[in-house]
């Protein structure tokens, strides 16, 4: 049974014409609104208890997708359901409390923790407001949460700036856990941390998953991190999902040429002094993505069909999906 399901979800950002452009259009300048398809017809189901890694380069729409799932941002088209109920209905209607079960942890704790609030208020405010704990029991509740994420309860009267990066990441996690969620969207939650601190926080994520039976959507550009923590990996490129596969299979036999290139480009501890090879070109601007398969200008295997026709995301093996015309070749 899937906990979160997305069906045909798209998010378009439109920059409306300003006054000057509208005036120019009166004289026939023919200026158009700028439209970005940040997320383009994405369907995905996440099972309860699963850790799904969402990987892609900057601008591929992975953060936007995370925000849509967390209910922070409405999709332009398509539907997101949480335990069978539409998130759009939950946001507007009386079932809002159900949305507490989905929480988000952000990349930069300094930007997501209010610098003028004490840690006990940052963590303790939401559970009190939502009636999860009585006000009188708030301090004890905050102590327990801090202990769970590996911080001393004695720190709870401090402000965010008095903590190190790793400790702030832990505060962000404690805040998300305060409302007893089932599903966590982690958007680059360890990206800004130093190597030794990153390992501590990743271990914490795995520990919490085991203790609290959480489901994670782990958004990251770091394939090493995602491989370590995820059961399944979703690869995005320019707003579209190009491949979904169980972690081990993805690393053993990547199907989509983009996935293959991405894996080949990740520096590895085991790979000693060698020549780095690179995919040609850069990720195209989402303002005017290439027609057909978005990856075709950089793909070494591209043929005529790739330039004109969008490849559908199809099942290529049980549990594995890929969006590539090469899979149709006889």
């Amino acid at each position, binding site marked *: 049974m899937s906990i979160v399901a997305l069906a045909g979800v798209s998010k378009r950002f439109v920059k409306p014409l300003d006054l000057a452009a509208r005036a120019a259009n009166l004289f026939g300048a023919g200026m158009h609104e700028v439209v970005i398809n940040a997320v383009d017809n994405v369907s995905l189901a996440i099972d309860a208890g699963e850790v799904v890694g969402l990987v892609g380069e900057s601008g591929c729409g992975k953060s936007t997708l995370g925000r849509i799932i967390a209910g922070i941002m409405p999709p332009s088209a398509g539907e997101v359901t949480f335990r069978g109920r539409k998130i759009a209905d939950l946001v507007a209607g009386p079932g809002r409390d159900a949305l507490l079960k989905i929480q988000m942890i952000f990349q930069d704790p300094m930007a997501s923790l209010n610098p003028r609030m004490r840690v006990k208020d940052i963590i303790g405010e939401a559970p009190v407001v939502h009636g999860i704990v009585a006000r009188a029991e708030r301090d004890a509740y905050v102590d327990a949460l801090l202990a769970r994420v590996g911080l001393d309860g004695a720190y709870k009267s401090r402000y965010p700036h008095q903590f190190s990066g790793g400790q702030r990441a832990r505060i962000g996690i404690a805040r998300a856990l305060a409302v007893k969620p089932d599903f966590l969207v982690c958007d680059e939650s360890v990206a800004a941390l130093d190597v030794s601190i990153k390992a501590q926080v990743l271990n914490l994520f795995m520990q919490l998953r085991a203790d609290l039976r959480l489901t994670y959507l782990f958004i990251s550009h770091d394939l090493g991190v995602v491989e370590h923590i995820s059961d399944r990996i979703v690869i995005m490129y320019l707003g579209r999902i190009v491949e979904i596969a169980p972690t081990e299979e993805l690393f053993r036999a990547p199907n989509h040429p983009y996935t293959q290139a991405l894996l080949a480009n990740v520096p590895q501890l085991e790979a000693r002094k060698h020549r780095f090879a*690179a995919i040609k070109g*850069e990720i195209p601007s989402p303002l005017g993505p290439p027609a057909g398969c978005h990856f075709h200008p950089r793909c070494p295997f591209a043929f005529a069909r790739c330039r004109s026709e969008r490849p559908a995301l199809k099942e290529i093996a049980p549990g594995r999906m890929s969006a590539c015309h090469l899979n149709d070749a006889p």
Partner: protein
Amino acid sequence: MSVLAVENLQTHFFTRAGVVRAVDGVSFSIAPGEVLGLVGESGSGKTVTGWSILGLIDPPGRIVEGSIKLAGEELVGATQERLRAHRGRDVAMIFQDPMMTLNPVLRIDTQMIEAITAHETVSQGAARARARAALDAVGIASADERLHAYPHQLSGGMRQRVAIAIALLHKPQLLIADEPTTALDVTIQAQILSEVQSLCAESGTALIWITHDLAVVAGLADRVAVMYAGRIVEQGPVDAVFAQPLHPYTRGLIGSIPRRGRHGAPLTQIPGMPPSLAKLPPGCAFAPRCPRADAACAAAPAMTDHDGGRATRCWHPHLETGAAA
């Protein structure tokens, strides 16, 4: 003969909160064409080491002791004119944020031509042709168009390539790269790495690659130096250090990196966090986090040489055979 020899470098910052010993007795040398990976976490002093070599330390910071010899010439205490003559010509640096190199209000061609004419007397036309060739060399398509662009019109990867092109204009003897790919996507990082690699190989430029990413160093460097709290704690050939790290910190760092085939297994944790440089513990700075620490660690260990061109600063190095945890 080494391109650069750094001996007991100490760069301290005299702040109101006390003396911050950012670099505290660093020694290393680098041969022509060699790639040295300088690894450490934030605040370990790796960037300040790079800046000290270029003479970029401003008050309240000061090089209080030590020697930096570039091709035999002492740079500590050299006049600003001497340093200026070297900077950009013999030693160049690329930064994590290319906007530190690029002037946002000048076109790319203006900046590149200025960098050329600063050290050589050449005609505008010749300088422009060289700038164009340099952009080609770092893999920038339609170089003529890019020469007329302003930095904000380029993508992050493109800007970093322009910064690298500028750094390599004079084929310096030494290039210091300070986390130049940290902010970039993996595919762009691979492009930059492959370009820097081939350019340095062609021109025989020695390279110091400063990073916190051990995996990049594994693939790029000949030798690695690991810094912790302002000191190099371990130094040696990449293969040997990664196969059998001697210092407990190096061992912990390598163990804490997620890698293939270890899915879901808990990562080795280094407990605690790096110390504040203003309040360093006496003795070995890593001792409070070290599983091997004992009474001996209350005194600072000296850098000790080991077989195979290796050295470590530890009372209890992992000398017993066996792979890294």
